[in-house]
């Protein structure tokens, strides 16, 4: 009996004992979900258009200074310039007999009216629907005729040779009395010409003025003959775009933060369709992800594909580029992504040469989906 009771309680004590191996203070909270992978749809993102970009305060201001948009969004480059003024009193002063009709000649005058279209030319774009006009304001209360010619030309921005040149005679053109901005030249440049009008000149220009101009000036505040040039042009994609930023300046870096390091991903894949209505082919080459507080290339991260060619398109016929982007860690987990470094090249999109640029063009991400392999890890102690 004396031995039985202690034995009984010993058995009970052992049987009901706590198992220290299960002490929750030792609990490793690292949890990995979906180890064999999980796919989720991500849907559609965008479109990201120039119209959207123009709503940005800084970028919008820059864009509005360079070009405008018509009601349908088509980009138009417009310029209006007063390129020569001739004061009536100067004519009177130089006239041998001011009371008599006189023919007054001026030296050749020229201007470059292409406005912001020139900037687009430098990038390889083409002009379309170019139109130039020249106007003359008459401060005299009597009609007169003019003489000479207007010459205009377009220059090949690659060879600097004239791509188009034309001269229009102005002889015998009548300018009504006290008239503002009388069109003395109006010309739509042929569509076959895709370079901007780089020069507009007056050649051998002369006024056949009436006598006694002093008493025929319209007002003292407006006593100038004013020559104004106007230019407008749409911008088309053309077939000359070949802007290889990568060769010129090397890869460009874009910094951002994608905090995925906490989830200990090993292998992530995003599939989507890039739908582009921009009539340009964009080539992203040598794609590298940047990591670290001071963003730098990470050799432990493999990104495929390294080169991505985004097909061009138009609003009527968007170009579609299927993309499967895979990020894989060669050792360990994918850390926080702090940027991307990529070579950029713009080139013409075959079949879209005549497509006009529009603020409504842009890029959308369609049917995006993500696949995670190796699971998502939370609570890692690393």
């Amino acid at each position: 009996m004396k031995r039985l009771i202690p034995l009984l309680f010993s058995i009970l004590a052992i049987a009901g004992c706590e198992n220290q191996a299960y002490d929750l203070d030792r609990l490793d909270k690292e949890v990995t979900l979906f180890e064999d992978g999980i796919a989720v749809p991500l849907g559609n993102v965008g479109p990201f258009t120039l119209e959207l970009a123009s709503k940005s305060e800084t970028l919008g201001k820059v864009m509005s200074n360079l070009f405008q948009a018509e009601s349908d969004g088509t980009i138009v480059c417009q310029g209006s310039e007063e390129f020569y003024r001739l004061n009536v009193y100067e004519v009177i002063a130089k006239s041998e007999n001011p009371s008599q009709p006189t023919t007054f000649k001026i030296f050749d005058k020229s201007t470059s009216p292409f406005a912001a279209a020139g900037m687009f030319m430098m990038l390889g774009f083409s002009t379309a629907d170019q139109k130039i006009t020249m106007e003359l304001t008459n401060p005299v209360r009597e009609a007169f005729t003019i003489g000479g010619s207007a010459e205009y030309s377009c220059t090949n921005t690659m060879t600097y040779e004239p791509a188009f040149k034309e001269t229009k005679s102005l002889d015998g053109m009548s300018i009504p009395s006290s008239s503002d901005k009388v069109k003395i030249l109006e010309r739509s440049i042929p569509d076959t010409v895709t370079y901007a009008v780089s020069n507009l000149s007056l050649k051998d220009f002369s006024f056949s003025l009436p006598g006694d101009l002093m008493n025929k000036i319209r007002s003292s505040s407006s006593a100038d003959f004013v020559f104004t040039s106007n230019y407008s042009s749409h911008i088309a994609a053309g077939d000359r775009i070949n802007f290889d930023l990568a060769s010129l300046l090397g890869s460009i870096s874009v910094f951002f933060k994608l905090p995925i390091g906490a989830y200990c991903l090993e292998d992530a894949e995003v599939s989507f369709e890039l739908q582009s209505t921009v009539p340009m082919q964009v080539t992203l080459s040598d794609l590298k992800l940047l990591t670290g507080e001071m963003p730098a290339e990470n050799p432990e991260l493999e990104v495929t594909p390294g080169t991505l060619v985004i097909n061009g398109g138009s609003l009527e016929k968007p170009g579609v580029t299927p993309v499967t982007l895979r990020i894989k860690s060669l050792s360990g987990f994918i850390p926080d992504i702090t940027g991307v470094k990529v070579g950029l090249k713009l080139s013409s999109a075959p079949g879209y040469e005549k497509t006009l640029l529009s603020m409504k063009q842009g890029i959308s991400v369609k049917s995006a989906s993500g696949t995670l392999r190796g699971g998502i890890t939370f609570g890692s102690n690393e």
Partner: protein
Amino acid sequence: MNKRIILSLAALLGAALCLNAQSFQEGFFLRNYNLAYQYNPAFVGDNDFLSAGKLGYSIRNNVGAGSFLFPDGGSLLTGLNSSIPAETFPGALPENSRIKGMMDISLVSYGFRRGDAFHTIELNLRGTADVSVPKEVFGFLKQGTGVGTVDLGRFHVEDNVFAELAYGYGHKVNDWLSLGARAKLLVPVQGAGCDITRLDVTASQELLLIGFRGRLDMTGSPDKKKRFWLNGGGLAVDLGIVATPAEGLTMSLSLLDLGGMFWHYGKGYSSVGSFAFKGFDKLGSDQLNGQYLKDYFLEKGMDFVKSLKPMQQRSWWEWQWLPVQANLGIKYEMPFYRRLALGATGRYLGCAGLPYWEGRFGLEINPLDWLDMTGNFGKGSQGLVYGFAAAVRICRFRLTAGYQNGCSGTVPYSSVSIGPNFKSMTLSLTYDL
């Protein structure tokens, strides 16, 4: 769903540790235990008594902490840790992980001896709670879906509380044989059950689709104006036989809870629906920020809840059997020391979905007239088990306490078992009249 339903569901889940009536088998060994008739109605008490309190509970689970936590060197890893292979977790889990609890509160008991007969009248409150989680849930979390459909259905949560008015009669037929029976009137008090029979998750690159079918039933009047409402009723009987064929030898056989009751579920809701997520729809650049995405997913979450579209169902009746118990016991008082007895017990509990059996060897010692102690050890369907109890008689009061548990060990500083387990506790106080 209205507030009452949500509160009922919360109470249901919170009551998972609420428990059911379990016969106190240690009572078979205790000499000073007035309530032995609850173990076997054929036990004829020697004195009249009154009891105003007995509390008993038991919890059974077919999985323990060891099914979800895994020691690894000096660390304790969860089953979702990448170091734990899928064959171990959730591979080793049963098809359904279950916790089943039972409760027994004796509100008042009165027993009186008249000649060879022993009569008992008592009013009890009994309840059960059951939670079942399918293995596929853990498989989905561990392994994902790849490209395919995962069925996470077969969730089950249930609780039932009923009142029991019992009359027992035990009769000494002769010097060595007693027979007994108890008739019990059962009245459901409150019950609720939630079943999710279908929860399909299909995750592909094009679509995340969740298909759902479930049901929630609760007792209660479908008419809010009726303040008093009967949720059903039923009957059950206990039968027993006790034999003492030789001096000091006692044999007991009893069958308890033969019967059941009708439950009337006055409030029911069913839900069948599906929810599809195809990703963002034209997410703009100004929406690529944390707050918008958070609000977006919250909105999608609410869309999912709305897709459940609970529809009110007509009230319905359901017959539920009580979990039948079969108890077998034998004990022998040592001829050299009558205050010491050795014995064995066996038990079978026929709970749907989680039946239970066990066999134990027991020892009883009665060193003093007012003190009984017993201990037992054995094996059950959920592993090794042990138990002990004591009964103390002070003046006319008899206080009894008993405890049973499994041997799988517990998580330190808690009572959570490591493996499948059966645990119960009983506490009672009677007064000899």
